[in-house]
């Protein structure tokens, strides 16, 4: 197929080495940029970290006007919104993955999977737009709230946004469960459901767990949609599990205040400090997901 090209003059071969180096550089780019991200976000956030020390993380007051930056309410807000979102998204997502991979006939499987993937590609601003216009009023009237922009609304919007991640990653591992395992169970007279429960899910459990971690990572980093529906009050709700009170998340604080913060001020630095917290959280979560997923592959061979 490429005879003529293969016969190209020899000098072309001398391009091999430089091209190889260029490709190597490109492969390195992801590490380089990840490192640069850490470097620059830390550098800009240093001032706030030095000013407040540990209080930057455990301080309960986030008040720009008095130049007090304690990120605890924001961290709590982020975690709370994400926890509720996952509580909704994980059962729905995993059940959907099982249904799509194990129950749906092959012919419409791809179609359904594509539609769910399309759900993932809807821009977050559109989710926010619809959340503000339709979901928030519904929540308000359902719970008799004065305003629907509360943690629960944000959680529901986030849940919808996280489900596709969970479906596609856990679906992948469910689909990767060897056919032999399922046949073994079916041939013993196990029903489809028993096969699913006793063979497929246990085998795919690490992948499912990884999908939950990835979902967590996606949800905690979501910005625009959350900002529009979370209510943005930098206080830990009372009682702390009150999901019907507004919250302020790490991402929302960055997006809302970054435009206001003049370069070099303490506020500017504090926002990068939030970025650093977020960076570390996502790095840990994503790495955990990676480790879990890799362990799962090993587990199939060993046990």
């Amino acid at each position: 197929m490429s005879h003529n090209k293969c016969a190209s003059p020899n000098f072309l071969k001398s391009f091999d080495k430089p091209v190889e180096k260029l490709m190597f550089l490109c492969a390195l780019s992801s590490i380089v940029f990840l490192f640069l991200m850490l470097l620059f976000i830390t550098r800009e956030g240093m001032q706030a970290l030095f000013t407040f020390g540990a209080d930057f993380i455990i301080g309960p007051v986030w008040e720009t006007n008095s130049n007090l930056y304690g990120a605890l309410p924001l961290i709590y807000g982020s975690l709370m919104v994400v926890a509720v979102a996952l509580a909704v998204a994980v059962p729905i997502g995993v059940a959907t993955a099982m249904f799509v991979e194990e129950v749906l006939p092959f012919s419409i499987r791809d179609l359904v999977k594509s539609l769910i993937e399309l759900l993932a590609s809807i821009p977050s601003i559109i989710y926010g737009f619809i959340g503000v216009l339709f979901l928030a009023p519904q929540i308000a009237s359902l719970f008799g709230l004065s305003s629907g922009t509360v943690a629960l609304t944000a959680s529901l919007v986030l849940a919808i946004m996280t489900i596709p991640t969970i479906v596609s990653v856990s679906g992948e591992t469910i689909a990767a469960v060897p056919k032999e395992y399922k046949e073994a169970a079916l041939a013993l007279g196990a029903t489809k459901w028993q096969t699913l429960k006793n063979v497929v899910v246990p085998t795919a459990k690490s992948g499912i767990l990884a999908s939950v971690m990835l979902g967590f990572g996606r949800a905690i980093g979501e910005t625009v949609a959350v900002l529009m529906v979370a209510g943005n009050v930098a206080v830990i709700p009372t009682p702390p599990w009150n999901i019907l009170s507004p919250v302020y998340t790490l991402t929302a604080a960055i997006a809302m205040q970054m435009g206001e913060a003049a370069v070099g001020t303490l506020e500017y630095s504090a926002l990068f400090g939030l970025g650093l917290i977020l960076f570390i959280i996502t790095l840990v979560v994503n790495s955990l997901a990676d480790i879990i997923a890799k362990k799962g592959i090993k587990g199939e061979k060993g046990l």
Partner: protein
Amino acid sequence: MMRSRSWEKVFFTILGAPAAICLTVFFWITSVLLTGIGTIRLNLLTTSALQGGLFEMIVGTAYLLLGAAGVAGPVGVFAAIHLTEYARHGRLIRVIDQAINNLAGMPSILIGLFGYAFFCRQLGLGISLASGWLTLALMMLPIVIRGTEEAIKMVPYNFKEAALALGASKWETVKSVTVPSAAPGIITSILLGMARVAGETAAILFTSCVLVTRGLPKSPFEPVMALAFNLFVKIVALGESPDKVFGIALILFLLVISFASVGIALRIYYRRKQPWLR
């Protein structure tokens, strides 16, 4: 001992409910947005923003997308070729692999924050198209690398063997056999990457967009107007009338969805139609 099969059927129907919820949500969002179709006139797409149209925003979004693809495409494809064809499995490769996964999972707001600190300020690009390209490219990169890797791995080894046996060098083999065979997959991954960043707001919020300016940027160092940014500022900061915003939201939605569906459809098509797998 009789197990009722109808019970089983009921159960799987229940299991199907969440899937139905997902699809319902999708169609609901689509239908909600499509109700806004009455508010947009076709000439909205071709009139300038100065006359109340969306022309510069649409083309600006296209500029951002094409530029980002122009950066992330080559870098991502080269990186993927290196990782699949050249790299030996070692610690460095594991670290690179990990880094790609982490980059893929990075919140877009952090990428935007970094883009502002690094591209806009450190490199002095300011709020400009170029900053936006680089920032968005950073978001596309993992998608392009992963998609290209998958496409390259699908190329059967005997293809490459055939070329190598004829005396082609490794690079020639890659260039003339591997990449052409993997081309559909590579293009698809770039498309999917573009779909991912087309509606992105947080990453361009501080890096490349302005509310209004005249016309399109004349150089990469000028700022640009974009659909997602305009929608964000108009809803969050200006609280503009829903009719006008509806139009932007709908067009943004259609743009992203069409990109994504073409990408997804192509991917399914080529996964099924890999001729050498038959």
